[in-house]
């Protein structure tokens, strides 16, 4: 296995939905890379294309959607054009996904044991006993008490937080190189979310798993991720190391998003707010998609800004970034 290749490298990914009403460019030229043992936060609001990006990497975009362009390199291998057989051998094995709703992963009518053993056997040539042992270990890893007994349970016998842990345990079964987590803690309570974040972090540190954590919640990313890419209307508008981006945002959208977090505002006073709402992606007009809500919009913004590096280590799609604020 190539040692210096990043776990995942995405370049210029384009996923479009060809609906009756027109083309929806849900993902439009997205690029990023994740090293091993690194956590990338992919942040965006609903409709920004962050989930579609995750599905595109796994080759799980259903019609009318289609990946129409770009390169996806997983451990040095181009998987954007891989056939379905190859993708199946990667999914749930080298690349795993965790969803917001754990029932996307779990089958309600099968015991946890059956599901986990099947997942192991699908990708490994081991006997059932070994597969079962692996399943038990994985449950233990995510902090499920008495894993031996819990293996015999059905998904409905678990609470929401426990179910998400089981889904994570299934993702871990084959010791993947990359985990794509799509809002896995959004539906969970604060104390349970902290437990899940703890497991994710441990996994990444101890086993060197690379992770893409897709969320709308900047505060979750702040404590968890090493670097962050902010998506808006199908494009990554700002990307960089987590501390740099959160402390000195350069793109007006990122700045607005961070500014509107309540803790960044004076108690009881009106919050900083981004005016307007997220644009519909159907037949989106050319140019910067944020310009109608942007306090710094200029005539130049009628063009589509290309990624630039106004500050070292930062990629920004903006003609008028807050560069002076960043120094």
């Amino acid at each position, binding site marked *: 296995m190539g040692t210096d290749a990043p776990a995942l490298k995405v370049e210029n990914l384009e996923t479009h939905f060809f609906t009756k009403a027109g083309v929806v460019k849900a993902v439009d030229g997205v690029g990023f890379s994740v090293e091993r043992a690194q956590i990338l936060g992919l942040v965006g609001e609903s409709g920004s294309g962050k989930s579609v990006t995750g599905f595109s990497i796994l080759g799980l975009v259903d019609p009318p959607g289609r990946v129409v362009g770009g390169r996806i390199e997983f451990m040095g291998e181009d998987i954007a054009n891989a056939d379905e057989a190859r993708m199946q051998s990667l999914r749930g094995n080298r690349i795993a996904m965790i969803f917001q709703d754990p029932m996307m992963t779990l089958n309600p009518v099968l015991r946890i044991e059956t599901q986990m053993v099947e997942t192991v056997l699908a990708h490994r040539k081991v006997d059932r006993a070994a597969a079962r042992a692996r399943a038990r270990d994985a449950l233990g890893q995510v902090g499920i008490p008495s894993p031996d007994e819990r293996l015999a349970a059905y998904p409905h016998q678990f609470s929401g937080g426990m179910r998400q842990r089981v889904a994570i345990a299934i993702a871990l079964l084959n010791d993947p190189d990359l985990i794509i987590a799509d809002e896995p803690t959004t539906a969970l*309570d604060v104390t349970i979310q902290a437990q899940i*974040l703890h497991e994710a972090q441990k996994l990444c540190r101890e086993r060197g798993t690379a992770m893409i954590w897709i969320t709308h919640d900047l505060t979750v990313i702040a*404590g*968890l991720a090493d670097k962050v890419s902010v998506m808006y209307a199908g494009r990554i508008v700002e990307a960089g190391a987590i501390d740099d981006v*959160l402390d000195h945002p350069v793109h007006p959208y990122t700045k607005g998003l961070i500014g*509107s*977090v309540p*803790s960044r505002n004076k108690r009881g006073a*009106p919050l900083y707010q981004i005016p307007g709402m*997220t644009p519909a992606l159907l037949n989106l007009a050319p140019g910067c998609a944020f310009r109608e809500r942007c306090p710094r919009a200029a005539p130049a913004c009628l063009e589509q800004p290309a990624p630039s590096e106004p500050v070292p280590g930062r990629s920004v799609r903006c003609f008028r970034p807050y560069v002076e604020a960043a120094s």
Partner: protein
Amino acid sequence: MSGSALVEIQGLSKRFVKTLDLAGKLANKLGSSIREETVHALDGVDMTVAKGEVVGLVGESGCGKSTLGRIVAGILAPSEGRILYDGRDVAALAPAEAKAVALKAQMIFQDPFASLNPRMRVRDIVGEAPLVHGLVTRGELESYVDEVLLRCGLDTSFKRRYPHQFSGGQRQRIGIARALAVRPDFIVCDEAVAALDVSIQAQILNLFIKLREELGLTYLFISHDLGVVEHISDRVYIMYLGRIVEMAVTEDLFAAPNHPYTKALLREVPRLETRHSDFLPVEGEIPSPLDPPRGCHFHPRCPHATRRCGEEAPTLREISPGRQSACHLNDGV
């Protein structure tokens, strides 16, 4: 605070009983043991909300905070306890007065999609109740609806549209307009911004702040999101499994939480300022309200729990002026 209490809740309890149907009773006669299930959603809750105050109510799912909100808003009836509105017992009012009081307390819901009737136009959603209750005449209705919509930041030309034509943030504004249209004094916000995107959440929170200033509203702000509650509330109640465990003025609570559960919550809430943190979560699950632990409900997860905590439920009592907590540790054991 005591003299000008707008809403006072005394010893409020709510039990949901799942009674056995005929089949269940028959099965029991034949020897099986299907039990009637009782959920203690609320267990002796006391709370006061002063006029013009924003009170935050924080808790995790299943703690009973939404049930409390629905009882205060008059949607559910309590099993025990009293609600005083402006000093008068709501349950003892004559029908006409009861209706007037019911309109004074309104609610904003969490889900901007389920909380609007999909088959009604915005004009009817907002205008129905004021018309039915005779707050406006049919002739005044159009301009009245316009006024309410504008106040909530909505374009009046949207009046003839249906809810599905709006975004989440706009729908939440329609829900707020519907509540405001009956001229309430008191608004219960049940996770009112939880389902919204961050940038939209800020807009709706600002709307709440603006309306409070313009109309002198009082809020009970129910949320699991400590950041939001900290921002908007004057005072905060923390709830765990049907009981209030701590109450304090917002600054005090966030500066120095007293109850171990509050401490855990505050430690674990993700913040922008905490980077590369080591998440050290509190152990265990939230117990089922069907079968809550004896004694202090939090003791199985509490790092400081003693034997007493497992046997005797601590009462909520004043630990310093304007501050209450329900924890045996305050007795200096």
